[in-house]
């Protein structure tokens, strides 16, 4: 870009002028060079941040693999073979299975609730809604995204739990179902906006061609627009589910936090993220329990990283598709 600067033009003219201008340009460029490098160094921050997060979360979980004294109490082997999550007792046990069941139940309920709802709403926004209304939907959903998760957790705990209990008549107020619905509310904006962007990016010409060939508007929406935008919609779903797995305050407040293993979604659960939040404050620094909580953190970090990469690939696929390749 800098080649557009005066040097290029003046070189064709008087040579003495060239030298003088060139030297001015050079002095300027030294400052420019410094500024550019300074900005460059700053933009390392994100990369350094991600690397540091990985290093430090993982570093704190390393003793589980290397320290034999810690391994007496907690190790990968024990996470799998033990049956209960009972870190605070004379004989502490750290089984991952109850937490896995809890997380799957909450995320499952959230997905079943949020995914269809958000995708249908996105289709309505791009395909059917009157123009005026459309301008109103996106900010509306952004408002939902703006509600802090602690407020959603509060609402699920104080209001929604009682409401849902009266409606379905189950015995424990706080359970996987209640937490899952609240979790669903938190991920609706993610799935909705990514899907809406994808649907919006489908060229008008495709819709018009479909309609001109005699397809009805729902056939066009379903068979043409949705199927072209599918990778983008999928990316939204992946990002939403990743968020549900990592979301903490809502499940911490609305799920009851008992690490039970059962098949019912109306039983209380304890998820991976809520376990960290509930137990880290009282844990003894450097104990097996402490390192186990950091290990759970590493697992969450790895899962979200994987999901992000998948979403990224899906978006790439959509872009390729839209570019006609």
């Amino acid at each position, binding site marked *: 870009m*800098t080649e557009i600067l005066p040097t290029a033009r003046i070189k064709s003219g008087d040579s003495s002028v060239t030298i003088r201008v060139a030297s001015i340009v050079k002095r300027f460029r030294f400052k420019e060079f410094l500024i550019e490098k300074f900005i460059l160094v700053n933009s390392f921050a994100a990369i350094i941040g*991600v690397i540091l997060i990985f290093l430090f979360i993982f570093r704190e979980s390393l003793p589980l693999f290397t320290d034999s004294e810690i391994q007496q109490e907690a190790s990968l082997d024990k996470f799998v073979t033990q049956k209960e999550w009972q870190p605070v007792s004379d004989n502490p046990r750290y089984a991952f299975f109850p937490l896995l069941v809890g997380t799957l139940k909450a995320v499952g309920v959230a997905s079943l609730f949020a995914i269809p709802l958000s995708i249908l*709403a996105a289709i309505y926004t791009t395909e059917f809604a009157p123009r005026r209304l459309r301008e109103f939907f996106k900010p509306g959903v952004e*408002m*939902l995204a*703006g509600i802090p998760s602690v407020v959603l957790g509060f609402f699920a705990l104080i209001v929604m739990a009682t409401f849902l209990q009266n409606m379905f008549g189950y015995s424990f107020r706080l359970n996987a179902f209640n937490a899952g619905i609240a979790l669903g509310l938190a991920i609706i904006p993610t799935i909705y906006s990514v899907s809406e962007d994808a649907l919006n990016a489908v060229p008008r010409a495709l819709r018009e061609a479909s309609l001109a060939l005699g397809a009805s508007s729902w056939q066009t929406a379903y068979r043409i627009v949705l199927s072209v935008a599918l990778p983008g919609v999928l990316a939204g779903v992946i990002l939403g589910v990743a968020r549900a797995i990592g979301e903490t305050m809502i499940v911490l407040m609305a799920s009851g936090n008992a690490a039970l293993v059962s098949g019912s979604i109306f039983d209380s659960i304890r998820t991976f993220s809520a376990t960290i939040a509930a137990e880290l404050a009282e844990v003894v620094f450097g104990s097996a329990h402490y390192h186990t909580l950091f290990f759970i953190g590493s697992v*969450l970090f790895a899962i979200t990283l994987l999901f992000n990469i998948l979403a990224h690939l899906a978006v790439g696929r959509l872009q390729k598709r839209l570019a006609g390749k």
Partner: protein
Amino acid sequence: MKSNPRRSPDLVFKILTGTAMLLILAILAVIVGNIVIHGYGTVTFEFLTSEPLEGMTEGGIFPAIFGTVALVILMIVAVIPIGVMTAIYLQEYANPNSIFTKSIRFAVNNLAGVPSIVFGLFGLGFFIQFVGRNMDRAIGADVLWGQPSLIWAALTLALLNLPVVVVSAEEALRVVPREHREASLALGGTKWQTIRRVILPQALPGILTGAILSISRGAGEVAPIMFTGAAYYLPYLPTSPTDQFMELGYHIYVMSTQSPDVEATKPILYGTVLVLLILTLLLNFVAILIRYRMRIKMKQVA
């Protein structure tokens, strides 16, 4: 109009999708409405300016508001310059196809996806246990930096919000017309002069949007500050970056899960939730408004 048999599935599909949209907006309205109705009576000037009394069943939430504001200010000071410079680099200097640029983008995207509780763990493991402890060792203090405090919580939140700022600033830079850059360069402006005098002033509303969104998110996140500095109750206000602090979101969490008498706490709890909700939604609304006006302006220029 005659009923066309092919039109009826159209109508069903339209109603189905429209109901989904309506349901989402209705849930939003119910949540906000419920909180406004129950919290409205509690939020008075006195509530906002006095301290909690009688184990949180009476009094106000001033220390929590103060702590939240202090936290957010420190966070903004840390995240805005770095976030904006990252965006400038990506948008103005970088070769978009280089591996380095791609890795910055990859890192920013991933940072946005990392669960907030993991940021909390990171804040504890890195800022407090590693940086703080080593600073204490270096200055020979007993425990000054190596404990949960305002500054570590703010830096943890800053890292969490880096993607928000980068993405908004980048979008703002992207919509500055190419011709403006070329005009400035053709008039002899250097790259940096062009960025500082031509591009940044135009991108300012977008950068502001990012700042506001990150404030809104920073004020609402609880998981990252639970172990890095927030306290349940403090008899004094934080006066230095190494103090602990009370915070609105954390206050809500503690009051709603650990209160000995939930019914007695409820009015105060609802009041606190309403204050936090107004704060975050108002900020979001302003950000949306700025972005909306910016887009209209861009359409006029183009």
